[in-house]
């Protein structure tokens, strides 16, 4: 009898051990997000207007950055939900130390950011999630079809074709795309470009198109863990 009890306890201990390891591997306990109120606001005042003027050390022509309105995570998601009836999802897992979170609305997108320190705007945030809400998003079948197409073309030549006024065509292969990798979480299909600087991943979920990026010292593995936790 005693032997049976001991074996049962041992069995439970082993199962418990493995569950702890597995849970810890998927979502380290200290990083599980309880709710959006856990975060600090990185701005000065709710609803402040953010104007960003890009500049470079070269003179390439470049687009303008639209005006964004900045909110705390909780208020921003509430506002987006009020406008669209749905809000972008936030990760269930984040790297340690990401205590600041903001939502920027403007320019056709909703940008959610996470950082370990206050940021002037989203350009220096450690984690950025660009979400585009569509009233008429592509069907699940179309999204899957696009995903399958991408899987068949994980890395391609970059080809520039120039046609002169006489109709002569000039082709030039000028480089390669960074390799894409693919993984499914639940019913979402994630495309990852790990080698680009910064690494990025994109996917559709519930009619919203997401583009997620991380900045150094966060790594492409951090990015994978973040987007995986968005798919559950």
């Amino acid at each position, binding site marked *: 009898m005693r032997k049976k009890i001991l074996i049962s306890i041992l069995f439970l201990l082993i199962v418990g051990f493995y569950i702890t390891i597995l849970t810890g591997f998927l979502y380290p306990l200290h990083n599980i997000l309880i709710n959006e109120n856990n975060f600090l606001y990185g701005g000065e005042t709710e609803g402040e207007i953010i104007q960003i*003027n890009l500049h470079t050390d070269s*003179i390439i022509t*470049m687009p303008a950055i639209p005006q964004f309105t900045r909110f705390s995570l909780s208020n921003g998601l509430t506002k987006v939900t009020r406008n669209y009836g749905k809000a972008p999802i936030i990760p269930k897992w984040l790297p340690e130390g990401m205590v600041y979170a903001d939502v920027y609305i403007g*320019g056709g997108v909703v940008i959610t950011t996470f950082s370990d320190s206050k940021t002037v705007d989203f350009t220096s*945030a450690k984690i950025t999630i660009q979400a585009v809400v569509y009233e008429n998003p592509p069907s699940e079948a179309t999204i899957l079809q696009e995903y399958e197409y991408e899987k068949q*073309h994980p890395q391609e030549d*970059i080809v520039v074709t120039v046609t002169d006024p006489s109709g002569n065509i000039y082709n030039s292969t*000028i*480089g390669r795309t960074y390799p894409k990798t693919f993984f499914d979480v639940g019913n979402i299909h994630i495309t990852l470009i790990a080698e680009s600087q910064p690494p990025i991943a994109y996917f559709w979920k519930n009619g919203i198109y997401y583009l997620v*990026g991380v900045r150094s010292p966060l790594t492409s593995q951090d990015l994978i863990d973040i987007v995986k936790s968005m798919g559950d």
Partner: protein
Amino acid sequence: MQINKSITSLFVIILTCAILGSLVVQPVQAPVIRYYAGYFFNRYTYNTHVPGVYGQIICIDPYIPTQETNMISQWVTIITSYVPEVNWVQVGYRKGGIPYGGYYNGLRYFAEYYSTGTNPYYVNIVSGSGSQKDMKIFRNTTGEYWQYLTTSSGQPTSGQWHNYAVRHPYELSWEIPPSTDRTEFRTFKDNMGASWVTYKGISPYNIIDAQAFSETTVVSIYMTGTHFRELHIYDTTLYYYYWNHHVPKNDWPYTLTQTSDKEFYANGGA
């Protein structure tokens, strides 16, 4: 012996200082600031798909103070991301310094992309004539360089209207020739029936907004006479429709006259 040691130590110190000094005193290029006047389409309010943008721009030929960083450009563009980096495909014309290829104070057509998922990230095709015709300008992880193409694409003419467009053919059922390649973008100038510069390999490729702007790098360039009209968004099944909303932007000292959603003027300088 002791003196020799001291001299050696002194020599080592001086040599170290010289090496460190040469590392510290590197030429630092000042950031080039941008000034804009024009429109964002701003699809956010209406959830609109934006498979491409079209606009007509009159060519102006302002005086450009001779310095490599001085430039004016006027263009239409599509945006595929604002974070973690701004990604775009753009077409229009420019006058002033040509990046990495040396200064050239003439009018040029240009088409360019910036794409995070692509190496090189940045590619710019600039039209021209004579010895500087059709420069391809690349930016990649190892540095910048440029080279010539073997064709000429002409030059914009001051006082003339020119048509520009960026299209994502995968989303346009009427596009000829059709394309199943999601990473392909076509830019057009004047002839809307045949792409001028086509880029394949752009990633990410979902368009999130469109813009039409006049851009300078120094306010002493006057953009008086700037005029954009007939701004259109392409439609996936029909051909295109006029911009039906916009968000304006004009940086000091430039002024913007908003005639309608599809037309504006910009003026001024300092």
